[in-house]
């Protein structure tokens, strides 16, 4: 098995540099067949995972539990959609941490966007944030979808480029609701530096950084004396930009292993296996499972662009409050593109910050991995994907939405074969 794993790695290394479209297509198919449609490979990795857990149990006793946290909505999606939890021994708990950028976008940003949409500023948003609710109604509406239905100027786009295209024929002021983690930031920074953004588009930055939130979530569990996290499943696409380095630093700081994982089901299983090996050896530091995309230094060009345009600041997260050095704001040199400056929008400070979680809704705890969706009294009882209450059910990347859509709330291990 190990041989097969190594062989697959080697053949991929030789495959990767070729990039004509035919080869790319074959490569994609190859990856899919290897990492997705591959029950035999999965069986083998599952066997090894059980073997390593058995070893840990031998050392620590029958009640031994090990807890790994992911920091990406897509990781949670893969975990639930492919039924990964049902393949693992009871001793392993996979927890979804802060990995949904829409879920953590503070209410005040949406309130600003709604207000502007009624002042005839066109608000471009991705579909996921279209129904993201505010904690209090603004002009009688609670999200951009309702704003649009009531005459607000809101446009849903599939990509940033769609918004730029739309602006060819739209001359009035517009804002782009820029929600996302490190992965999306270069997509805004690079066109900005290259003067490709029309003068009538301004950014409303809700960009957030993942490693600070990961640290916050893990420390919060400690603070509340909850069972500690034993390993980090680090986000592959974020790391494609940041490189492995920030996760290495975080891993050493927190004294727990981290593995940067891809998004196919086998990627996640292999990352869990790697984490178990590291736990067994008491190893810290980062390993890269997602070698086909992630490098140690990351995407240097993108990181430079982010540094030119954005400043790392202490930023508020919905329901959570301020996290040190966790957000990106537009630098003064580019203030002509900053909605906050152009429209003199208020920005909360640590002192003026008001909690923006819904009363009774456990989204904040769910985002931080301190609670499961099933711990919330509204989950599937008044809060479901067709009628979501909290942000974790609104966004398709939210843990509650993923659990509701694919039965993540059931322990299917009982069903067996």
């Amino acid at each position: 098995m190990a041989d097969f794993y190594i062989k697959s790695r080697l053949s991929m290394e030789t495959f990767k540099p070729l990039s004509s479209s035919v080869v790319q297509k074959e490569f994609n198919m190859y990856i899919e067949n290897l990492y997705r449609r591959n029950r035999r490979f999965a069986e083998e990795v599952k066997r090894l995972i059980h073997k390593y857990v058995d070893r840990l149990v031998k050392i620590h006793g029958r009640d031994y539990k090990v807890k790994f946290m992911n920091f990406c909505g897509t990781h949670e999606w893969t975990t639930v959609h492919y039924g990964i939890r049902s393949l693992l021994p009871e001793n392993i708990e996979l927890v979804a941490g802060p990995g949904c950028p829409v879920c953590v976008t503070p209410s005040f940003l949406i309130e600003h966007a709604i207000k502007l949409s009624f002042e005839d500023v066109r608000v471009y948003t991705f579909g996921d944030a279209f129904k993201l609710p505010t904690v209090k109604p603004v002009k009688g509406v609670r999200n951009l979808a309702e704003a649009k239905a009531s005459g607000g100027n809101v446009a849903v786009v599939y990509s940033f480029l769609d918004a730029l295209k739309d602006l060819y024929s739209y001359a009035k002021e517009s804002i782009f609701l820029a929600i996302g983690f490190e992965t999306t930031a270069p997509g805004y920074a690079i066109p900005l530096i290259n003067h490709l953004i029309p003068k009538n588009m301004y950014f409303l930055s809700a960009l957030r950084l993942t490693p600070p939130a990961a640290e916050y979530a893990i420390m919060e569990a400690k603070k509340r004396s909850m069972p500690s996290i034993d390993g980090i499943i680090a986000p592959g696409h974020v790391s494609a930009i940041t490189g492995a380095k920030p996760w290495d630093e975080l891993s050493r700081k927190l004294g727990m292993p981290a593995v940067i994982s891809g998004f196919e089901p086998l990627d996640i299983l292999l990352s869990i296996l790697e984490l178990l090996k590291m736990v067994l050896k008491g190893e810290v530091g980062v390993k890269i499972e997602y070698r086909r995309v992630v490098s140690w230094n990351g995407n240097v060009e993108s990181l430079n662009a982010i540094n030119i345009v954005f400043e790392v600041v202490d930023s508020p997260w919905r329901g959570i409050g301020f996290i040190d050095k966790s957000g990106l704001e537009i630098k003064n040199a580019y203030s002509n593109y900053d909605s906050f400056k152009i429209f003199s929008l208020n920005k909360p400070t640590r002192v003026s910050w008001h909690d923006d979680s819904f009363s009774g809704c456990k989204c904040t705890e769910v985002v931080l991995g301190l609670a499961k969706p099933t711990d919330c009294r509204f989950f599937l009882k008044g809060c479901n994907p067709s009628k979501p209450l909290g942000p974790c059910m609104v966004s398709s990347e939210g843990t509650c939405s993923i659990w509701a859509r694919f039965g993540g709330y059931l322990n299917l291990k009982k069903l067996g074969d």
Partner: protein
Amino acid sequence: MSKITLAHGAGGKETANLLESMIFSRVENRLKKVKGGLGIDHPDDSALIPIEDGKFLVVSTDSYTVSPIFFPGGDIGKLAICGSINDVLVMGGLPIAMLDTIVVEEGFPMDMLKRIIDSMVEILTAENIALIGGDFKVMPRGHIDKIVISTTGIGVSENPIVDLNIQPGNRIIVSGCLGEHGATIMALQHGLNVDMLQSDVKPLTGLFKPLMKHFTNVVKAAGDPTRGGLSMLLNNWAKSSGNLIYVDESKIPLSDSVRKYSEMLGVDPLHLASEGVAILAVDGEAAEEVLEFVRNLGFDDAAIIGDVKKDESFQGLVIIRSEIGGLRVLEPPAGEIVPRIC
């Protein structure tokens, strides 16, 4: 004030809830069916009305609003005729007659209307089905989007297939690759190039006529996975029969292009509509034989994809074994999946 949303008409949970609260619960039980037949007491693909010699009249009605009205593989006319034919067939009926209602927007090009009606007549002729009545209306410009067609299919059955008969031990057979129609329409609506896609819209007569002749009591339930796809249909079966339906994802026939487009569009292919595929629940012991028979009829991609099981803890659910062997629940689609798919 609550208002109708597109989700109410998407054929998912919202539609089911609306029909229950708005219509089914407001009709007296005795008026939900004709005596000795089947109606909205147990909503199925068609209604049954008993006639002489223990036979039944099989009646089904449907309206079609698909956008765009012309698409690779067919048009709204072909879809409207095939849809009602298939609803009668999956009930075990042989279609004999059709009625249609066409509502057109003022200003609609006459040659387009002719093309649409040509394809309706073409299917009716090929299938030897009489067009016995209908209605034609025009709405002022802007009061309707281009054209809406409604059809009512009428057939006769000696042995109706009623989905209520589904039992533990039955196996689930799919007659072909899923989601072709849904993926085509969705890709068109997103302005994507659809060279690799084509709607599968077609009458399923070639499947059901021989199947009903040779396997009369073997086929326990049948359906065509239109709106809401395989997921909606299996969930209806699981809920109405109180059983667990267990599906092996690696056995589900899907074309590479549907896989690719669904991934690109962020939809589950199991939620996408087919317009020329049948799902059967058959006697476990005869399943392999039925599969062989179906394949020999030219349905090369047909496959046994799962089983009906009795399970106290998971009754009423559809559980799917993923391609890596893990388990998840296949929930019925909710919200607006693809607007105006059929």
